[in-house]
């Protein structure tokens, strides 16, 4: 795909007018706040913002000396990895099956698509409700099976709960994209592989899966960003970062430190770190998009 148009319209002012709304909105609500976040990361303020002091890189220093912050990095990594890997593999499995069956594919699709519409915060509530230690249906069922469910104290249970809710919510989205990706793989390639003697299993791993890689990579990035940011509502509703800080992912910590602990400088510094991570991810994604194989 060419990056430029051959023919362009000639006008001195029109493009500016067309760009103006977007420019105003991202200027006022993106670049200005982002620069403020940068400034604040170099400041120390009291809760009510009545006193401000420049502290240079102190906030960052404090951040990286804080074992809790580093632990939050680890938590985020574990959480994102689990969400992305589980979410992608489950939806890939489902999409592959749906792509196979031909009959009923649309029915399955319609049934599988629902959770996409559920807000993360509500997903958190739903799963919390199912796993609530005394009244939840699932925890009750587990209890009957002799399994003591307690995400209030057991960090593994808590992590399982938020991961399950996050994955559940994201499956639909992944599923749709995988299905579209699968359907765009030319049949003749699979036929050629069949003639070459490859079993269905082999065909999947040597042909389908590699050919899906652009979709998979796109989804991987989307899922990581989702796990990083959009799951805030789930965590807040289901565990509030607990037990201890075992499910406090970075964005939850930004929120907690900034809005509950009123440590604005620290929170802003965390925002800056997060921005860095996301920009890095974006650049990687863009590089890949640019180089992306157009089959």
């Amino acid at each position, binding site marked *: 795909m060419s990056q430029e148009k051959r023919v362009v319209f000639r006008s001195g002012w029109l493009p500016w007018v067309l760009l103006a709304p977007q420019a105003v909105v991202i200027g006022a609500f993106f670049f200005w706040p982002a620069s403020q976040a940068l400034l604040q990361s170099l400041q120390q303020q009291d809760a009510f913002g009545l006193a401000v002091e420049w502290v240079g890189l102190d906030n960052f220093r404090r951040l990286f000396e804080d074992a809790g912050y580093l632990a939050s990095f680890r938590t985020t990594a574990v959480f994102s990895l689990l969400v992305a890997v589980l979410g992608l593999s489950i939806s890939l499995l489902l999409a592959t099956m749906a792509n196979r069956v031909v009959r009923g594919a649309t029915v399955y699709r319609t049934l599988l698509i629902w959770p996409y519409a559920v807000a993360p915060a509500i997903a958190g509530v739903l799963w919390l409700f199912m796993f609530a230690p005394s009244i939840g249906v699932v925890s009750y069922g587990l209890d009957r099976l002799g399994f003591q469910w307690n995400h209030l104290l057991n960090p593994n249970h808590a992590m399982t709960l938020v991961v399950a809710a996050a994955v559940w919510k994201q499956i639909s989205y992944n599923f749709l994209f995988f299905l579209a990706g699968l359907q765009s793989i030319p049949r003749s390639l699979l036929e050629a592989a069949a*003639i070459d003697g490859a079993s269905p299993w082999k065909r999947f791993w040597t042909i389908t899966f590699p050919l899906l890689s652009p979709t998979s990579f796109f989804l991987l990035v989307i899922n990581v960003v989702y796990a990083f940011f959009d799951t805030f509502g789930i965590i807040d509703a289901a565990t509030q970062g607990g037990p201890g800080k075992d499910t406090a992912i970075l964005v939850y910590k930004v929120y907690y430190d900034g809005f509950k602990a009123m440590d604005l400088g620290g929170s802003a510094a965390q925002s800056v770190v997060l921005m860095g991570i996301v920009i890095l991810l974006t650049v990687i994604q863009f590089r890949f998009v640019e180089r992306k194989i157009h089959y």
Partner: protein
Amino acid sequence: MASISLRNVVKQYGHGAKANPVIHGVNAEIQDGEFVVIVGPSGCGKSTLLRMVAGLEEISGGEIAIGGRVVNDVEPADRDIAMVFQNYALYPHMSVFENMAYGLKIRKLRAEDIQTRVDKAARILELGHLLQRKPRELSGGQRQRVAMGRAIVRDPQVFLFDEPLSNLDAKLRVQTRLEIQGLHRELGVTALFVTHDQVEAMTLAQRIIVMNAGRMEQFGTPEEVYSRPATTFVASFIGSPAMNLLRGRVEGDRFVMGHTSLHLPAPAPRQGELVMGLRPEHAVPLTGGAGQSESPHSTAWPLRVEFVEMLGAERLVYGHLGGAPHAADRPAGHRSASDPNAFTLRIAGIDHPPHPGDTVWLQAPAVRLHWFDATSGQRVEE
């Protein structure tokens, strides 16, 4: 290498009320090492037939045998065939080498053996320097050759080709055609080749299967198909421009079409309603005759010229036999194939071409006339 037998092969998509029969019982015996081309218009079932041989479509009825073994229930992988697809179906994420090696790897050949086989195929196809490229870095012609390479390395009993040339541009098509032919000569493997292009069919085939609407209309050498088409369909499908097919009545030694009556150079095989065929290149214009309005000859036929197209080495002359009263003032674009006595003439050379409005006198050599039954379209012989 192996022979292929099609015995009353039937295919229908769907079941019961929604059944859509697309192949209506095809019988053909393809010899070991033979190069057979299946040709026919779009949608006539060529690909379906080929894919049944490949095992990619279930066979609804009849039997297919490869090398004497009935393969109706054999998986494609186990039929010992190789197939070249229209869009090549190269694995886009594998290098040329990997593409060719894939089938061998799956069959668990030793790495050295794979290397040897791929190298050999690459040498034959002059792909040696491209082995590390990905398909997208190749031109159309090169991709086509990789697709063939992938088929060759497998050393199969049968080669199947589904319109492998139609994605190439005209020049490359001609060249690749020659290559495929050379290759077949070299390897001697039984080959089944699908195309809708009759020129391709004529140049490549040892024998041609002409298909129409799920039926096999003729199975013969190019020579036979060209010189003795079995049906009007074959007659009009093979050869370009198409054979002139004139519908009329044989009355004694004359052929009557509406107001026009032509004197036949020899007796027709029978009297009554018939279709008479004559190829554009077989009608001989009587040299002195351009512009003349009187018949120079008792069996000469008058062609009223409407339009002449120059094709470099030759010309196509479009007109009406016996002269059609209103035809001349219609624009050429609106000539329709169903015009009863429209006639196309192909003449070589570029000197003294006839002009629109002229009458050209034609001689039809008796041996070049083809006769078909007016209702069944079947060839009628003496």
